[in-house]
């Protein structure tokens, strides 16, 4: 469904992403892992259109995403969260969601009628999303006044509000404790059960190994492994990438 | 050289001081809309020194430069802490403050039987040093060129020494500059002092060429112009702002075929240059390429 074909992105001399091909199937939770600077966030930025690829392309059900503007990608069903949360701090929780519904509606309405319609106060799926994210009691609170965990939930809800087919999660557990991680895992599964395919970038191995169907591992912008969590964990290259290849260290970890 | 060429070249020279002054601040990351204030201070101080107090020319100009530099530093002291836009508007406010003060500033003395000195909005007549000393326009062009050469020389020395690099580091990344031990505020104040002095030098030379100055000449328009020169010519070297002046005044004069459409043509050209080269014609990359080519 979401396909990356020979995707490359070079910054000057840096090959942040180097000839990566991936296929993610419908309804999957797909993990993308790798050490810092291995190109994971760059891939998300290429899929959402923040960067233009040096070579290769991204397609979603045959739509060539790389030929689209950012907002058009949203309207064909790509949504994301950010590693450092990005919300509209001056808007209320509900307003944050209304904006994102836009991408969904854009397909249907002419822009003038869309824009001068009053702000969608009673849009039903916003209420549903608020309940889904347990933010219903906070619907009129300014987003900047939320707690850290609530902000993360709101960010995910906002991504869902654009009615995406693929949701890209960029380190959703950063700064969260282990218990939060378990709640997060449930939430990600619930998102999948809504029919959304999930691409997850995460450092918390606990989370990644626990909920993903398949994992790809990046190192230096290249894909070094792909497979089920157990296959990936057993892969020698992966261990080397994370822990250094020296044999001695290998022993230390197992000691 | 005919009189017309001389006057065009003199104008290019005088505007170059203003352009370099704004450029020095741009290099260290500050947008100033108000360098015309120091141009005015230099013009009035230099004029008063030679015409009213009858000081020698060099001393009078020097007085203007020192006054411009000191005031530049003093104004920078509270303003460099402001963020970009606020700094820009603060410089604008200061420049307009200076201009409106000059509008009510009267200081006239009797010299050789005539009342001489600035008279508010009526301006400041008879800054006659060049006339009395018998300096021809061509000779005066030489003086302007010498002043400009001195400024370029000073900046070349700073480029050889550490000064220029310090300014650029502060402009590029003030946080990194701080972490490398540079006192960012002090460097910005130093830059403002230097910029004030350079603009005042231009102003003092301008006053003695024009023999007449009035507050209305030092409006916002020249301030914004002098800022635009650096941006058009390029931020890479000190020749960038001079190139900007050349393009403006040189082109304005050479595009006479367009008669009264020339501003429209010029504006369009500038907009085009900025679309193609957002950091001006002589940007850092081009400068480095030219340097490499020269070394070869």
């Amino acid at each position, binding site marked *: 469904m979401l396909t990356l074909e020979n995707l490359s992105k070079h910054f000057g001399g840096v*090959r942040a992403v180097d000839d990566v091909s991936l296929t993610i199937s419908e309804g999957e939770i797909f993990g993308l892992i790798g050490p810092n600077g291995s190109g994971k966030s760059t891939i998300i930025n290429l899929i959402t259109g923040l960067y233009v690829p040096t070579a290769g392309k991204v397609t979603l059900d045959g739509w060539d995403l790389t030929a689209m503007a950012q907002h058009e990608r949203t309207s064909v069903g790509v949504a994301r969260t950010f590693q450092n949360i990005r919300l509209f701090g001056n808007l209320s929780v509900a307003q944050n969601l209304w904006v994102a519904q836009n991408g969904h509606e854009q397909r249907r309405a002419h822009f003038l009628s869309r824009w001068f319609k009053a702000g969608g106060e009673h849009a039903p799926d916003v209420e549903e999303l608020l309940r889904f994210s347990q933010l219903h009691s906070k619907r009129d609170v300014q987003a900047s006044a939320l707690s850290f965990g609530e902000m993360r939930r709101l960010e995910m809800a906002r991504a869902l509000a654009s009615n995406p087919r693929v949701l890209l999660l960029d380190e959703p557990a950063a700064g969260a404790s282990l218990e939060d991680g378990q709640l997060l895992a449930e939430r990600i599964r619930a998102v999948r059960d809504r029919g959304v395919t999930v691409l997850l970038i995460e450092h918390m191995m606990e989370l990644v190994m626990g909920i993903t169907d398949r994992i790809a591992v990046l190192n230096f912008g290249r894909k070094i492994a792909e497979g089920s969590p157990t296959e990936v964990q057993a892969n020698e290259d992966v261990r080397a990438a*994370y822990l250094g*290849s020296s044999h001695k260290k290998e022993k230390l970890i197992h000691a | 050289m005919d009189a017309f060429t001389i006057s065009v070249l003199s104008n290019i020279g005088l505007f170059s001081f203003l352009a370099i002054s704004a450029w020095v601040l741009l290099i260290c990351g500050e947008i100033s809309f108000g360098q015309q204030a120091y141009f005015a201070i230099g013009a009035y101080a230099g004029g008063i020194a030679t015409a009213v107090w009858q000081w020698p020319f060099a001393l009078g100009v020097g007085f203007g430069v020192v006054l411009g530099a000191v005031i530049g530093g003093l104004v920078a002291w509270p303003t460099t802490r402001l963020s970009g836009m606020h700094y820009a508007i603060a410089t604008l406010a200061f420049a307009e403050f200076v201009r409106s003060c000059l509008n009510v500033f009267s200081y006239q003395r009797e010299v050789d039987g005539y009342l001489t000195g600035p008279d508010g909005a009526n301006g400041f007549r008879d800054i006659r040093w060049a006339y009395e000393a018998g300096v021809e326009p061509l000779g005066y062009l030489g003086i302007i060129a010498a002043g400009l050469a001195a400024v370029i020389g000073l900046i070349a020395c700073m480029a050889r020494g550490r000064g220029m690099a310090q300014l650029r580091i502060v402009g590029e990344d003030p946080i990194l500059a701080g972490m490398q031990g540079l006192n960012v505020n002090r460097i910005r104040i130093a830059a403002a002092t230097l910029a004030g002095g350079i603009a005042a030098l231009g102003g003092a030379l301008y006053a003695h060429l024009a023999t007449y100055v009035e507050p209305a000449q030092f409006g916002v328009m020249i301030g914004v112009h002098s800022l635009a020169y650096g941006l058009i010519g390029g931020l890479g070297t000190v020749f960038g702002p001079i190139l900007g002046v050349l393009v403006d005044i040189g082109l304005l004069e050479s595009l006479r075929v367009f008669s009264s459409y020339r501003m429209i043509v010029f504006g369009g050209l500038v907009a085009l240059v900025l679309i193609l080269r957002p950091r001006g014609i002589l940007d850092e990359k081009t400068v480095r390429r030219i340097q490499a080519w020269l070394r070869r």
Partner: protein
Amino acid sequence: MAAAVEIQGLSCRFGGVKALDAVDIRLSPGEVLGLIGPNGSGKTSLFNLLTGHHNPEAGAILLDGLDLAGQSPSQIARFGIARTFQNLRLLRRLSVYENVRAARHACAPLRDAFWLSPAARRQERDSLMNLLDIFGLSEKAQKTPAELTLVQMRHLEIARLLAADPKLVLLDEPAAGMTSAETQAITEVIATHVLPGRSAIVIEHKMQLVAALCPRIAVLNAGRKIADGPTGQVLADSAVRQSYFGAKPC
């Protein structure tokens, strides 16, 4: 030359998150400490506090007994602390040479801003080119950082750090994004040119580099120090492994 460092009860928070929570670390002169921990555990925040970029909520940082609290970043740099950045902080419009030269500016007298004698200039040029040579960058001296590879950029950051001749160096993931061979190379460069005569704190995920350079390791997790001791011992610690790989055995 090398400085003693004492970090006492250091805490700070950003927004709602407690980035550091009462962290204590002591470094004797010339000691090299590896700092590890999962992403977001507060390692880089610790560096930001040490360089004065952020102010601590509580706690003290003593450099050779001198309290750094309330000092500006520029003063702290002059006391002899220099760092590299995980996300590379290079001056993109200046040449490679100028980037390194920038670090020499800090303590220069005002006169130097306007005039450097040809001899001083030559001397400076020679010493900086030597430095670039060590990192294999002398050929690239007139290029901009954007024209370098990632590995060269990391080398450039370390060269710049050395140009300031600090007493305490803070290396933030010097080998991030490097292959094993490149990591080996930079490990050697750090061991021979950076560490002698200096105290150091090294943040790194690559155990290859940490084990080679740091006899001692401290581990941060969620802003707290959860382990501190000889490298082999700490890495064997089960709490550490859990914070990296999760509770399930791999």
